[in-house]
């Protein structure tokens, strides 16, 4: 048995009179005794205190997407378009929170995308290099927790066919009002390198684009059951911004006698882009019904002429103390970029901006989702453990002919 005792005696001699001094000394004599006794029984029951580098949390997720639809940027079909955008995507992911010590933690994410991109990715149509593309993303964030302030550094790499991206960033979180208020700010730089294969498969040499963004946000507890948060962010991009292997249906002028020819021409973007985003979210737990309601709204605007509004609601309902169901609905409306076209004019200058990318068209997108979550820490004894399992399905569809079915299986454990 180990016993540690520390004794602190503080004696303050105060006023002049000897009697008073004695009285004060007795009154102000403080004993602080701390006894730490660890018995073998206590250690066996409570476990040894964790020390050193350890994994605090582990998350796994596997997502499967089936996308169907058509878009004018795809040349998989007739020249006039639209071409097929059908793909399958399998996306395993893993993330871990690693505690280095009481003040430093690391969050690591690794994700792999396996994409059958025979049609949506024009590279395969041009090069026939592969009908299955893989990409990998590795992100890490190191956070230093310093008495109410968190400082973080982020770094990452993304690699896919003909494309590599590097990112670095910094972040800051200030905890105020006994952590009722969180103020956060962050900034990132992303540099993309890509082989600019054109629509005929010709590689004109490595090009790059750079994105710099800044965000500030605020999170506030409004009550024991209510959280609200908001953020504003701006991003500036420069470089080769178009997808070089995308194409645009065009009428090419031949001659007065021969008229025009239906063909495909290159997608062209401006070489700079400025974006702004503002968002707000509210989460409300309702103890009486054992449910939670969340709502969010996001506003987007950029100098390509694209204006977007996104709203989402989610309802969580406990079926038992350890099993809950979540339903979500998302609505997104956007204007197209100012240079979106499904048929480029015959007299269009070669460097005038143009795109037929269906993602940049005027559209309305909706999404319905359902998720079932088993929360084992809250389960009765035979089921109870420090992990959770969930299964979810989302159906996403756009007004301009795209539908996505997403199935996701997740696992989360704390240590």
């Amino acid at each position, binding site marked *: 048995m180990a016993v540690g005792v520390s004794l602190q005696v503080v004696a303050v001699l105060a006023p002049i009179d000897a009697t008073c001094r004695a009285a004060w000394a007795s009154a102000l004599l403080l004993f602080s005794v701390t006894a730490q006794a660890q018995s073998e029984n206590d250690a066996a029951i409570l476990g040894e205190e964790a020390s050193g580098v350890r994994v605090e949390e582990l998350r796994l997720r596997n997502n499967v997407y089936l996308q169907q639809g058509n878009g004018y940027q795809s040349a998989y079909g007739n020249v006039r378009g639209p071409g097929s955008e059908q793909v399958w995507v399998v996306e395993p992911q893993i993330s871990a929170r690693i505690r280095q010590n009481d003040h430093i933690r690391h969050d690591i994410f690794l994700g792999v995308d396996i994409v059958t991109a025979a049609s949506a990715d024009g590279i395969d149509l041009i090069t026939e290099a592969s009908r299955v593309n893989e990409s990998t993303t590795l992100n890490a964030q190191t956070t230093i927790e310093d008495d109410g302030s968190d400082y973080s550094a982020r770094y990452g790499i993304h690699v896919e066919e003909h494309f590599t991206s590097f990112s670095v960033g910094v972040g800051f979180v200030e905890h105020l009002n006994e952590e*009722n208020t969180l103020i*956060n700010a962050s900034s990132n730089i*992303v540099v993309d390198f890509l082989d600019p294969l054109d629509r005929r498969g010709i590689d004109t040499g490595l090009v790059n684009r750079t994105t710099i963004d800044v965000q500030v946000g605020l999170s506030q507890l409004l009550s024991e059951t209510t959280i*609200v948060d908001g953020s504003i962010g701006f991003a500036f991009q420069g470089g080769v911004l178009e997808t070089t292997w995308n194409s645009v249906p065009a009428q090419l002028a031949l001659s007065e006698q021969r008229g025009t020819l239906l063909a495909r021409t290159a997608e062209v973007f401006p070489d700079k882009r400025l*974006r702004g985003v503002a968002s707000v979210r509210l989460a409300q737990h309702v103890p009486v019904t054992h449910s939670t309601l969340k709502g969010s709204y996001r506003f987007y605007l950029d100098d390509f002429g694209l204006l*977007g509004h996104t709203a989402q609601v989610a309802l969580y309902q406990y079926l038992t103390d350890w099993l809950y169901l979540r339903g979500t609905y998302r609505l997104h409306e956007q204007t197209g970029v100012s240079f979106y076209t499904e048929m480029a004019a015959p007299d269009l200058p070669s460097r005038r901006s143009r795109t037929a990318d269906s*993602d940049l068209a005027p559209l309305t997108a909706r999404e319905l989702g359902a998720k079932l979550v088993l929360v084992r820490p809250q389960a009765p004894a035979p089921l109870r453990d420090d992990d959770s399992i*969930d299964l979810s399905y989302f159906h996403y569809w756009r007004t301009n002919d795209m539908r996505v079915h997403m199935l996701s299986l997740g696992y989360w454990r704390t240590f």
Partner: protein
Amino acid sequence: MLKFTKLARLCLVALLGAHLSGCVVVPQKRRRFIADPTMQDDPLEQRARGKLHRSREGASGGRGQPAGGGCACTN
């Protein structure tokens, strides 16, 4: 689009009103409901859904996520 502009204004007023009406301080021992799993976000699911939306819509970014870059899409 007009209804969204009105909705945006309503959300902003509600947010400011809630914040300026006098924020209570919820002590740590009374955050049982705040700590409920349904009040938390799943970061992997957020990342996956964010990517689904980001690569199919032109309006990416928000809530700490960078707008643009990092993928071979132009969104």
